[in-house]
């Protein structure tokens, strides 16, 4: 074990600074504000610091380490060129308050990304400001809220979400002040149009839904759903977390949506190590565009003077939407993430559809391979599909309820068993509508070999006796972690008291 706070060298610092400026009157802090006790930070030399974080990294699983079939998270390979681009001059040392003529490159990339996302989503205007999917949801729902306020439809106080929705959907709408109306799914995991029709009325501000849905099923009735909500005067919100299934094939616009968020860090491969950073642009139809947070990247023909610094035939500038809700992040969003995603987009360009096709191909192939292997080994009875379908989209769900009933093996047991096989586990217990759910999303960047081997190993786990599985994992840096202990014995920081 390497413990950061056990490093207490007599050494001053792991980063020796140059002398710095001196001033005539010694620079001071007001006497009442002088720091009395310095932070009890550790003291490491650079060699020790490098070794500590190298050690930590070796105890962490990433896509580079192995297959990461975490459903709903689109853990695709992060192309290395993204990192090269993010380190080029002209991004790290750019301040968002610099004048426009200092930022033509940044603005043109922003513009290109807005434009590309508008096309992919079938929306009229995109903003790149939200920094994660959840913030995109919040932002779009805020726009919808202001839209209705401006129209005098203050009675629209409700947002409808299916019970299979991701937690951020209701949380984001609630943060805006909306009441949440949850509608149950049908037995086959799909949206219940009748249930929707029953709740959609003049109090409905919006419905939030993702398609393909969180079970990996395409909601074929989506236009009907849109119709119902629109007929009731509400707006349709598309949760874009599952965009990886549909790029170039269909779009929220075609399905009748009014607003949508992207999770660029998923679909467009922004590395979001350990939980972030993300980027959650939103796109909206024309009626909502005036409410978007500003500024947006826009362009026009340059003046003679401007053409000196223009990067191409256009002059790029910031543009403030007329009835903007204001800001959701203090600056222009996660510019560094947007640029990586721009690099990613450029790799596919008009061929983005191929990417989605392969994502769907891989998901279906894996689903098929798991069933095939299970049949071969006679353990097909231990799980059922989370939803009936001929073809899944980019992900699929399995219910481990049969294994639970027959052998006492839970979805979590299977997950831990997979860790022992060297895999990251699929998402478990989400969506809540599938009992003992495992949600599996391979993404397009996994090879057939990897999928075949995973299917075999998955089935091998199912053939493991319950006791062994309850004790899994055994090959990981630590064994099953006691989350209850963590919650009961809260230790949220290094207890200096004890160590002194």
């Amino acid at each position, binding site marked *: 074990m390497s413990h950061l706070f056990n490093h207490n060298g007599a050494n001053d*610092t*792991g980063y020796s600074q140059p002398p710095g*400026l*001196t001033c005539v009157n010694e*620079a001071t*802090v007001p006497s009442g*504000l002088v*720091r009395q006790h310095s*932070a009890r*930070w550790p003291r490491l030399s650079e060699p020790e610091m490098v070794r500590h974080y190298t050690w930590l*990294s070796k*105890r*962490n*699983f990433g896509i580079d*380490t192995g297959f990461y079939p975490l459903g709903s998270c689109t853990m695709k*390979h992060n192309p290395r060129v993204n990192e*090269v*681009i993010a380190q*080029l001059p*002209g991004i790290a*040392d750019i*301040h*968002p308050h610099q004048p426009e003529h200092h930022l*033509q*490159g*940044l603005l043109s990339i922003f513009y290109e990304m807005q434009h590309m996302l508008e096309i992919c989503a079938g929306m009229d205007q995109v903003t790149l400001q939200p920094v994660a*999917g*959840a*913030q995109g*949801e*919040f932002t779009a729902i805020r726009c919808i809220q202001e839209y209705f306020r401006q129209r005098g439809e203050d009675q629209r106080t409700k947002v409808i979400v299916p019970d299979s929705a991701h*937690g*951020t959907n209701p*949380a984001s*709408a609630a*943060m805006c*002040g909306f009441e949440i109306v949850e509608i149950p799914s049908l037995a086959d995991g799909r949206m219940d149009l009748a249930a929707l029709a029953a709740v959609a009325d003049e109090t409905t501000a919006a419905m939030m839904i993702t398609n393909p849905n969180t079970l990996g099923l395409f909601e074929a009735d989506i236009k009907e759903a849109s119709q119902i909500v629109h007929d009731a005067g509400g707006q349709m919100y598309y949760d874009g977390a599952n965009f990886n299934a549909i790029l*170039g*094939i269909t779009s929220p616009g*075609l399905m009748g949506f009014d607003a949508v968020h992207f999770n660029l860090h998923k679909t467009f491969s922004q590395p*979001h190590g*350990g939980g972030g*950073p993300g980027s959650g642009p939103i796109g909206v139809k024309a009626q909502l565009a005036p409410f978007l947070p500003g500024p947006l990247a826009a362009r026009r023909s340059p003046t003679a003077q401007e053409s000196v610094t223009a990067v191409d035939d256009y002059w790029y500038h910031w543009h403030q939407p007329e009835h903007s809700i204001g800001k959701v*992040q*203090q600056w222009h*969003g996660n510019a560094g*993430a947007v640029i990586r995603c721009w690099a990613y987009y*450029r790799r596919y360009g*008009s*061929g983005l*559809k*191929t*990417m989605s096709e392969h994502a769907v191909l891989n998901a279906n192939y894996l689903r098929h391979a798991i069933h095939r292997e299970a049949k071969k080994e006679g353990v097909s009875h231990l799980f059922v599909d989370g939803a009936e379908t001929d073809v899944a989209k980019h992900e699929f769900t399995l219910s481990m309820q049969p294994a639970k009933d027959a052998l006492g093996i839970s979805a979590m047991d299977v997950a831990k068993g997979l860790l022992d096989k060297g895999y990251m586990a699929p998402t478990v217990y989400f969506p809540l509508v599938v009992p003992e759910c495992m949600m599996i999303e391979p993404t397009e960047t996994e090879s*057939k070999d990897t999928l075949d081997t995973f299917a075999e190993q998955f089935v091998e786990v199912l053939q493991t006796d319950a006791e062994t599985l309850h004790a899994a*994992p055994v090959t990981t840096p630590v064994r099953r*972690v*006691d*989350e209850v202990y*963590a919650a009961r014995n809260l230790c949220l920081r*290094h207890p200096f008291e004890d160590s002194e």
Partner: protein
Amino acid sequence: MVDQLPNRGREAEMLQSMGLQTMEDLFIDIPADVRFKEELPLRGPQSEEEIIADARRLLGSNVDMGARPSFIGAGLYRNYVPAAVFQLVTRGEFLTAYTPYQPEVSQGMLQAMWEFQTLISELVGLPVANLSLYDGSTAAAEALTCAVRVHNRKASQSNTVYVSELIPPDKMSVMENYCQGAEIIIKTLKHNADGTLDLGGLKEAAGSCGVYLEQPNPLGILDEGLITVKDIIGANTALIVGVQPVSLGIVEAPGHYGADIVVGEGQPLGSPVTGGGPLYGIFACTKPYLRLMPGRIVGRSIDVDGKEAYCLTLSTREQHIRRHRATSNICTNETLIALMGAMHMALLGPDGLRDLAQRNLAACQRTKEILSTTKGIEIVHTAHHFNEFAIRVPGSAKDCLNYLDDNGIIGGFDLSTWYPESKDQILVTATDQTTLRDIEVLSAQLAMWSMHQGVSA
């Protein structure tokens, strides 16, 4: 793009094994009437080389702060980030991981974030810190809603918070967006002519749910008055202090003068400015706020063998469990940037942080000294500044900044952007990267500007 798709060329084989013929068969469930009829009207795929060439051309047209004397800050600060930080954070195991849902194989990031929590907790002087929010502005906004959740029941001014009038409008806007859903009323707190908080006016805030102030304040001022705020507003009103974390190397931690919540933009510790993001929001608080705070938290626990182990904890506050009753909607956060922060802090150590703070302070002080003797330039506030301060220039700030820009200097931030009445004020920022030459060039050009404006020697 072929190089990113391992199964290119294997489509037929894979489809066949599923009893399918074409890729189309995978999409039979998508009705024709919602299908794109044609290829996306986008440019063609490019190779890595072509993308880099385009990126180099486009980004190369941006003007790097480092390429010229630059005095712009106003919330984001260019401090040097040691080489080891970049090289370690891009290790694939960190870079390509996601939220540590399976703690057994995510101990590295979990421990790093637990250490981050400790580093932040020690930095700000509060016992609890989460593992990052989106940025400084959302951290401040979420602090307000958190304060209302905690104090509303006992508050005499329910649903009400007070915020310094100096807070930049962009940040205020974020706060308003985050507060409006809970119908929170945001009132403002006045400041004295010298840029310090009007402690008299503050009394009004007692009985509200919370007070949000910054130290240093948006004018760069270290306001000694803040140490008396908690006494004035009392135990039932949250004192929320927004900090510039580097300053805490020499400035007292707000936790030590009564802050209940400390928030801040983490960027100056560990991360470049990057056009305004990704950043990371610091959020720390005292124990009473713990169960109503936003964001992820790591706890130290044990595994089944009793071995030290880390995992996410207190998740019942979060959206994936509590859904619409969650304390925040945040899911994807800024862990990787927070990790850079942790690495930077670990490298600096307490003495290194003090040195870094001192370098910032000294650079600011030196800039002030030189500009105070520059023809036509006036230092607006006689005060202790940390790393930025307002100057008054002849003519308009906007024109003056344009003039400086024409002469290859990023002169600072036009304060009228924030405070429309301050048409002739510029916020001048110095950091560890500011050199004497930079300051001299700025001073010389400001003197020229003054001359052009008719200020005589």
